[in-house]
């Protein structure tokens, strides 16, 4: 059963620290798994056929499938009692992210090879900076949930409208999404620090990974539009 607390008590500080370390180790593991899958896909020559297959169907279908995996993965990782189920959810989510990134990474690689590294560096620096803001100020950013949910809904409407009505989303949209992803990182990090139950480090790592991946996607998109 879900229990709530605003801040760990003195006696629970050690448990909380262990939880935080485990969460970030799992996040690191998820990122490394993501990179390994991408390297595997590109090295095996699967990237091009996979990208062609994904770009051959409506982007709404790809997005819809990805949303289903995200929703199921987050739910299972956050609520399942079994650790196996939680890890399976995290694994499925990382795999889904790795697949949806293939067309974008392929285009970026063909456009200018260094752009992926630059976007990754900016994403890592942004993530570390935002994490530091939460850990140094210890501010509770859980109040951002409402804004993130409504803005997320607006973003979905905008993407659906773009696909159905046939218009491209531009630089301002990417900047908006970078701001959105930054706010999501503040929200997730603050939940890691203050609110996640201590046995939910897999779910917490999944939430953080989703926000980092979102930030990377739109930073890369911005870099590609610049180049």
């Amino acid at each position, binding site marked *: 059963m879900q229990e709530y607390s605003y801040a760990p008590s003195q006696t629970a500080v050690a448990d909380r620290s262990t939880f935080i370390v485990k969460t970030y180790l799992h996040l690191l593991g998820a990122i490394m798994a993501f990179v390994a899958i991408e390297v595997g896909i590109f090295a095996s020559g699967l990237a091009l056929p996979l990208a062609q297959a994904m770009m051959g169907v409506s982007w709404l279908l790809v997005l819809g499938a990805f949303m289903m995996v995200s929703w199921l993965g987050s739910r299972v990782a956050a609520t399942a009692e079994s650790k196996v189920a939680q890890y399976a959810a995290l694994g499925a989510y990382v795999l889904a992210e790795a697949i949806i990134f293939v067309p974008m990474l392929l285009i970026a690689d063909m456009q200018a090879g260094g752009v992926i590294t630059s976007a990754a560096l900016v994403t890592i620096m942004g993530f570390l900076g935002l994490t530091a803001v939460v850990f140094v100020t210890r501010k509770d950013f859980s109040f951002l949930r409402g804004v993130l949910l409504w803005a997320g809904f*607006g973003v979905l409407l905008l993407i659906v409208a773009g696909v159905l009505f046939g218009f491209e989303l531009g630089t*301002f*949209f990417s900047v908006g999404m970078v*701001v959105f992803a930054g706010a999501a990182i503040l929200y997730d990090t603050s939940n890691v620090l203050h609110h996640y139950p201590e046995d939910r480090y897999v779910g917490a790592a999944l939430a953080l990974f989703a926000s980092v991946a979102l930030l990377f996607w739109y930073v890369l998109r911005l870099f590609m539009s610049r180049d």
Partner: protein
Amino acid sequence: MLHDPAPRRPLSPGERWTGLGLSLLLFGLFVADVLSPFEPRKLAFPLLLLFWAPALVVHECGHALAAKLVGWRVTQMVLGVGPELFRFRVGETRVVVRALLAEGYVVPTPRVAGLARAKSALVYAGGPGAELLVAGALALAWGWGPFFVQSDSYPLIACQSAALALTIGAVTNLVPHTLAGAANDGMGILLSPGLGLPHFTYLLAVPASRAVEEALHVGDLPLAAETADRALAAHPDNPHLALLRVRVLSATGETDAAVEALEALRETAPRDPLVEAELLHAAALIALYSQDPELLGRALQAVQAAIHAGGASARFEATRGALLYEQGRMDEAFAALQRAYKGTRDPILEDHCVAYLALVTQALGRSEDHSRFARELSRRGTHAHLQRKLAEASANVGGDPR
């Protein structure tokens, strides 16, 4: 981001302004993206947002119309979330309009239990059905085929945006899920065939229960008693309506009479889990109102048995939280009240949770959180007896109830 591990608590002024600033920044950037470079078809995004409110009205009216067609009553229709702007009546339906027209609900009630399962499914289907019908009518008005092309014609983009808003509304409501503990339309359609007669007996009592709770909430005890009596006279066999009489007796301080009436009802009421849970919950509420230490001791067991029989509804959790507070078990009280507060959008139940969370956070020494809940309690201006209790508790610890 989809999972929410944080407690629900009222926003501080700083958080409110930060949230507003971030919303404006994001909205501004998205609008800037629409305008630069401008194409007529990019107007689909603002138009989708604009048509969301009319789509919501079509959806709720669809439910109401379906309910009327199958002979059910519609006592309330709520359009939107957030602060109430205004309310009006259409026949017996009270329509409440709130600030943000993003979601809503209707309260349909059967008059008799006949064919209730099929009628329930039809009422659930009425909302998304109405949206799909209007969207289809818009497409037909353009001759169907020409409607599904990408174009820069302003009238066509407007109609396509309206149809898309209606379709998204219908589809998202048809994908089965629960929201704040309540089934959405898709889930309701799926569950309706399996609902038993006790569920509809309960539904039949909902409007009167609601009216009695509202009267008790504002302290109008005569109105509460009159409403309970009138409803019971119309359906003397309904155990949920008989329980309203018990609720009124306990609220007026007639604890012995309430206990006696409850005991009598236990003898005659049908044996089903829903009624059993409500009887146990009523016993817990009598104890809570009476503040009798002996009754309070047993009340916690009663409400836990109610949760066991009827499921962990927000109402039962809220009562459990209040009883735990009365017993000084503050951490457990906080957890139970948070589950209730996060699991409801019912303003009366929210008031109850806010009031007790103000008391609990004060007892736990969480001054920042206490001031949030106390401020929210003052803003809501309800639960005078709990506000008094909070003031007394603050005086005892030398704190400031604000």
